[in-house]
């Protein structure tokens, strides 16, 4: 299967099943399109077909192009067969281990963001803080269930985790004490809205956190509308100087300023560029996921504008990169040379199996998005996974188990998308959130175009 598209003057051909990506000239672009529909084992027949279908090119040109196409095919870099449908059968039998936890350190928040899926930190429940005891038990659970995986990830999440920062610090110390005896390496991360951020927290985070995610939506008006303080006042002015300092202290690496765009700022590329102009070099601005009756929800009718915004952003990023003031946009990151193996691409985000969320009182859920939906409770950090049927449902969830994904060109890049989004929109984790899919596909196309444009410069 191939996927071909034109973007910013580049003709791009993705060979889905091999992972190869080619930039081609016009004639090759046209030849590949015809070849995909009609091809025989006989090169002469193929040439005749091309001559019939593409009369504007000469026989010699077509012959030369066809030879290159055939060569790519012979090398397994074009029209590669899908050999993974069988592989996935073995893959389903795999034994999974837990390697990442999202610790809900605080089910409370000092902001009142309008789009909060966690209901301002409460997650369909009461305000609550994780105790040190529950947190330690969670780390013990992780170590005990991680098999021989060395790298373990723990995200301090909320609500707002800095509202319970003493427990965060103690848990980091506790985690470090487990590393040597159990041959583990903890990678701690922190997601914060920045309100309580101070020098002490920054210093601690810079010593201990592999990554920090700093929440800000972009322009002041956009940020303050969706992310107001509890008293309705601006948060932008409070957090921007702190985030700028934090990013510099981290040498502009291993962090993200992370925003959400909504129906209210469909021109979100302006927010991304605003963050870049504030000096941030690691930026993630992502579409809100919300029920369609919410006023801020992305609607299908918004898609054409959002596609244009991604194109605009991609072009501007190429321009800035060439000028020497580039920045990284998380959703355009794509690793073409050293990317994930097929096993990873099939297993997706790992929710419910490798990745679990822990509530302040120690309940386990498939991920942070499922927290508070009782039917998805997997167990507790004390008793381990009890609902093995739910875990197995997540384990079997892969791109070939989903009708919408099975033949999608993006399946090895998004790995089937977010299970929670699928469930929230369709009542099943084996479906897909359609608006999310359209945006994801566009982002992949833009990300590859950027690679093509930068390779063009070399």
């Amino acid at each position, binding site marked *: 299967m191939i996927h071909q598209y034109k973007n910013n003057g580049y003709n791009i051909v993705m060979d889905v099943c091999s992972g190869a990506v*080619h930039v081609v000239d016009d004639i090759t672009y046209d030849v590949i399109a015809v070849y995909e529909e009609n091809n025989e084992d006989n090169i002469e027949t193929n040439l005749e077909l091309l001559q019939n279908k593409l009369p504007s090119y000469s026989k010699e040109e077509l012959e030369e192009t066809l030879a290159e196409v055939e060569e790519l095919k012979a090398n397994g870099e074009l029209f590669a067969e899908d050999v*993974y449908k069988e592989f996935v059968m073995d893959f389903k039998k795999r034994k999974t281990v837990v390697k990442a936890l999202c610790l809900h350190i605080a089910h409370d928040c000092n902001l009142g963001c309008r789009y909060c899926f966690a209901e301002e930190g409460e997650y369909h429940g009461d305000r609550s803080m994780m105790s040190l005891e529950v947190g330690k038990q969670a780390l013990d659970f992780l170590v005990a269930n991680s098999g021989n995986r060395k790298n373990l990830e723990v995200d301090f999440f909320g609500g707002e985790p800095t509202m319970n920062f003493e427990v965060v610090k103690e848990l980091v110390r506790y985690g470090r004490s487990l590393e040597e005896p159990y041959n583990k390496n903890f990678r701690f991360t922190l997601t914060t809205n920045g309100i309580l951020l101070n020098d002490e927290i920054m210093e601690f985070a810079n010593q201990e956190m592999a990554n920090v*995610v700093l929440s800000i939506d972009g322009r002041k008006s956009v940020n303050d509308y969706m992310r107001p303080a509890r008293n309705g006042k601006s948060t932008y002015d409070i957090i921007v100087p702190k985030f700028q300092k934090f990013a510099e202290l981290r040498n502009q690496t291993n962090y993200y300023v992370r925003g959400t765009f909504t129906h209210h700022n469909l021109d979100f590329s302006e927010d991304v560029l605003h963050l870049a102009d504030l000096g941030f070099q690691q930026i993630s601005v992502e579409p*809100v996921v919300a029920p369609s009756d919410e006023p801020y929800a992305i609607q299908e009718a918004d898609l054409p504008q959002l596609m244009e915004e991604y194109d605009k952003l991609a072009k501007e990023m190429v321009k800035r990169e060439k000028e020497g003031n580039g920045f990284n946009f998380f959703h355009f990151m794509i690793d073409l040379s050293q990317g994930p193996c097929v096993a990873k691409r099939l297993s*997706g*985000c790992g929710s419910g199996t490798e990745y679990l969320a822990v509530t302040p009182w120690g309940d386990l859920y498939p991920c942070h998005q499922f927290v508070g939906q009782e039917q998805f409770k997997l167990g507790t950090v004390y008793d381990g996974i009890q609902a093995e049927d739910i875990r197995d449902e997540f384990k079997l969830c892969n791109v070939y188990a989903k009708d919408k994904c099975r033949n999608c060109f993006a399946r090895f890049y998004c790995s089937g998308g977010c299970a929670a989004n699928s469930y929230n929109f369709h009542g099943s984790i084996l479906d897909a959130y359609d608006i999310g899919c359209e945006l994801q596909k566009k982002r*992949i196309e833009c990300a590859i175009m950027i690679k093509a444009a930068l390779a063009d410069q070399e």
Partner: protein
Amino acid sequence: MKHVKTLTNKTLKSTMEKGGCGECQTSCQSACKTSCTVGNQTCENKR
């Protein structure tokens, strides 16, 4: 090649043999928390 510039010829197929060590980062821990972003992850098992 005259007509084709290959950005990557990496064949996913070859990763079926060695792949699956599981040491790579969990995608949702990196930044997103609302989407699934696997294709941008880097393999930790240098091939």
